Every structure is written in C-alpha cells, then in structure tokens.
C-alpha cells in the first residue's frame, strides 16, 4: 500500500549496476564532480522512486558533497520529490494560455474521477495529480504530461481513456 507519510525508503540504498556505470559516465562529463549533482539526482529518483533523506545522504556521499547542499538543490527544483509520489505523475498545464483553453477543467475532471486534489496521490499509489506551468505545447491546449509523454487537445473521453491505462 502507498504510504504518503513514509519517512524513508525500505531496503538498502545502493545504485544498481547500470546506474553505477551511468554515474561514472555522468561524472566525467564535467570538470568537477559536483556539477553532476542534478543528473545524479534524476537518476536516483528514477531508481528509488523519490529523494528520501537516505537517498540524498547517499548521493551526497557519492559526489563528496555536504548533505545540506544536496537538500538545498533538491528543494529548489520542482521535479524532485522529497516526499513519496505516485507511480505516474499527471501534470496538467494551467499556465497562460492553457488556462483559458480548458486547463482547469481538465484538472477538475481528473480530480473528480480519481477522488484526489491537486498535489495528492491515489490510495493505491498509482497517480499523483499536479498542476504545471507552461509545458511548451500551448498550441495544442488543453494538455497534460505523464511519464514524460504529452497528451494534447484533451477531451473528457480522451482523459478517461488515458486514466484507465495508469495503474
């Protein structure tokens, strides 16, 4: 069961063998290690699900950075989850111009269908609903992004069809 209040992840915090390789590649792209912090946080989040205190401490140790620096950077950027998030983050654009083309109606529709508010996650941990600022697709409003994929020119039917695939 999904626990939105978990304080850390279960199990050992160690990069997978593939991510170990990736870490080495990332580090040698920059003149110094700390510059790899943001890409490494992305990698850690995709392996562990979210950036728990334990994960951040592990990243700090691997990049030889103070833990406070890692927390500061992780907190600055909205894509990094400092709390458990659902398996699928549904991000609906409500920026100008999407807001005048039905962006908020999409948020309401999803919210009603799933019984969650913005920023909340379904009880089974499948979906977190979020509002996003301009996602660079304004001509195809209203739109949302989930798992990095765009779903544009949304209609209630298309939203329902999409939601049915998010488990």
């Amino acid at each position: 069961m999904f626990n939105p209040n978990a304080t850390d992840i279960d199990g050992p915090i160690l990069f997978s063998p593939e991510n170990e390789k990736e870490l080495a590649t990332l580090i040698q792209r920059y003149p110094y290690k700390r510059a790899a912090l943001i890409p490494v946080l992305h990698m850690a989040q995709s392996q562990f699900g979210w950036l728990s205190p334990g994960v951040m401490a592990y990243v700090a140790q691997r990049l030889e950075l103070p833990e406070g620096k890692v927390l500061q950077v992780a907190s600055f950027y909205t894509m990094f989850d400092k709390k458990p998030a659902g398996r699928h983050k549904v991000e609906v654009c409500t920026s100008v111009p999407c807001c005048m083309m039905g962006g908020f109606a999409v948020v309401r529709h999803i919210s009603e269908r799933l019984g969650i508010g913005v920023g909340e996650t379904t009880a089974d941990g499948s979906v977190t609903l979020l509002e996003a600022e301009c996602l660079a697709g304004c001509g195809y409003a209203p739109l949302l992004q989930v798992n990095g994929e765009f779903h544009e020119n949304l209609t209630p039917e298309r939203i329902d069809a999409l939601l049915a695939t998010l488990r």
Partner: protein
Amino acid sequence: MERVITANWHVEKAYTLSVYQQHGGFKSLKKVFGMERGAVVPELIKSNLRGRGGAGFPVGAKWSFLPKGTDVPKYLVVNADEGEPGTFKDRFIMERDPHRLMEGCIIAGFTLGLKAAYIYVRGELVLATRRMEAAIAELYAAGLLGKNIQGSGLDFDIYVHRGAGAYICGEETALIESLEGKTGQPRLKPPYPAVVGVFGCPTVVNNVESIACVPLVIERGAEWWAAQGSEKNGGPKIVQISGTVKRPGTYEVPNGISLRDVVFSDLYGGGPLDGRTIRAVIPGGTSCPVLRADQLDVKHDFDALKEKPFETMAGTSGVIVMDETVCVVRIAARIARFYHHESCGQCTPCREGTGWVSKILDRIEAGGAKRAEVDQLLDIVNNIRGNTICPFGDAVGMSIGAYLRQFPEEFIAHVEQGRCTYPAW
C-alpha cells in the same frame, strides 16, 4: 513560404543522421571546415541573425566577444530550457531535427575553438532529450564528434544536461549556476558569460533556434538570410500561435511580418473563433507587454515592437491571442501567480513584490478590492522594475504594468461591480 528552419519537421525520421544527411545535413559544416576560422563570425554579423531566446541579441556579435587565443577551455551552452509561457518551438527542433542543432554546435566549436557544448534541456522534455542523446551517439559513431573531427583538427564534445523544473534556469546566468550543480540563482553581471561563464570559463550562451539557424546561414549565405527579414532582423523565424484562434500551432514566417497577418491570415492563426472578436494579443511569450487588438499593424520583429505606441517585445515569438470572452484581469492574475511561484527569491523587491502583486490581482479579479489598490498595484510593479539582479524583475513590471495601462477599464469594472462578469475557467 518556403520552409527553411522547419524544412525537416515533416520529413519522416529526420532525427536520424542518414535522413538528415539525405536532406543536405552537414554540408554547412563541411563548407566551414574549408573556410578560414575567422570567416564565420563576419558572415553571421552580416546575416543579421538575432538570438531567438527572447532578447534578440545579434548572434555574430555575441560570438565575437569571446576572448581569442586563451589557454583556458571555452564552452558553448545551448539554452534549451524552453519555459516562457506561450513558447513551443525549441522542443520541436530537438525532437524532429536534432542534428541541425548539433551541426550548429560543431560549427561554433570549430569557429570559436571550443572544448565542448552543453545543451541544457528542460527536464520535462523527455522525448527531446532522448532524440538529442541518440543524435549525439550517432555523431560519435560517424566521427562527427570526438577527436580530430573529419581531419579538421577539432576535438569537440556535446553533452545533454537535463534541468529539473525551474523557469528561472532559462535566464542565462541561472542556467550556468544550475549546470554547475547548484540552485538556479542568477548572477550579477558583469562579468558576462563571455568572460566568466560555466566552470569559470569563457562561455557563449545561445538559444536552440539561434544555433539551429547557424548552418542555414552558412548554407544560404549571409545576404540571403538578411534579405528574408526586416532591417537588422535577418531570416525566417518560427512563430508559435496559441489561445483563442482558429489555427493555433507553429509557423515559419519572415522576420518583420505584420502581427495582424500572424493572427488573422489563413496561412497562420486564421483569426478568431467563429462568432468571437479578438481583444488582446501578447506578441512573444507572457513576459512581453500585451497589445490591444487595434495595435496589430506592426512589424513582428525585435525593433518595431519596442517603439511607441507598442512598447513591447518580440520575445520568443510566442503569440498568445485572447478574445472578448477572456478576462484580462484574470490573465494578469494568473501571470502574477506564475512569477510569484518562479521568483528565485534572491532580490527582495522581486520575492516580496511578486507575492503582493499576485495577492492584490487575485483580490481585484474576485471583486474584493478597492480602487486605491489598483493604483497601489502600479506602484508596486514599478518598484520591482530596475531594482533586481536579473531581467525577471523587469519582466514582472513590464508585463503586469501593461495590463493596467492597456485595459484600465477592466480593472475599474471589477472594483465597481464587486465581481468578475466573465465565464469561469
């Protein structure tokens, strides 16, 4: 009009090296390898290619500021953080035609003697990132990246660096900070990136579209490029049309095309939705001051839009259209909320001011504000302008200020009627 920048957008698999090359790709690089190193910058200057990231700074001039003959490494940083609301062009270049961007990077590398290019791509743009990474892998395999590229003596690498969600990282010095693994807080200028950029080294920062245009300038020649646009605004460009129009989307147009044509022509925006009337247009992303529908007879370029009575900007050429069903006060309030959310917090006038502006605008929109608060709002936005480290603060002042200047009657009506009479969102 002939598609030049977007020529490959509808070519199947143009994102692969073989298809890109079948359509003339990498001919410009070959040409550049045969030219004097010093010959490219004068071509760019002559072409009047201006930066497409918002400010319109001439690309050739920017390249010429990079110190020559130093021993420290020099870098190109490509700004692929596309986040200005209303803007959706760089994403398509990266997704559909990534090799053109790479070709531009390699030309910059050769011309300016650079060690590497970092493409700072907005974290949300997953397909763009994947396509660029695949393109780069193909280029290493083909000997077009790495050591001694095509026997030219150039050693050059390109790396893709993903951001992680922060609009301010589009500002070039915030982007550099972020690329160094820090929070994205803009630096005081000077020093400019050309002197102290990423990793303390001289750096050129250019937008995706700017760099993707470089091979095209070389291919077509500076005279051709300059002739496509208006005075000092060379080349075709990509306008992006959104909001309440018939044909939203991206279109390639000559620089300096009339804004009225962009919005109304059947080739482009196609005019208002049936039975509606256009009331307001933002010419280049939400940071640009809004225009009224009676102000559209102006050239869409970096210079004409600045002039009185328009006093706005071409910005990213993201044209946002609003008809009479849209509440402009609510639009201003939504933009203010965006600014409040995205302020990096370093400067007090910006951090605090955006919060006040957002609160007051929400109150005006809901009908709960007094007349005096409308005047107070103007004072606050004027105080943010010019008192901050980066141009974000100026953008807040200019864009919000323009709603008050252009549509004062709308603000007054909300106050007097004690409510918003427009349809809910």
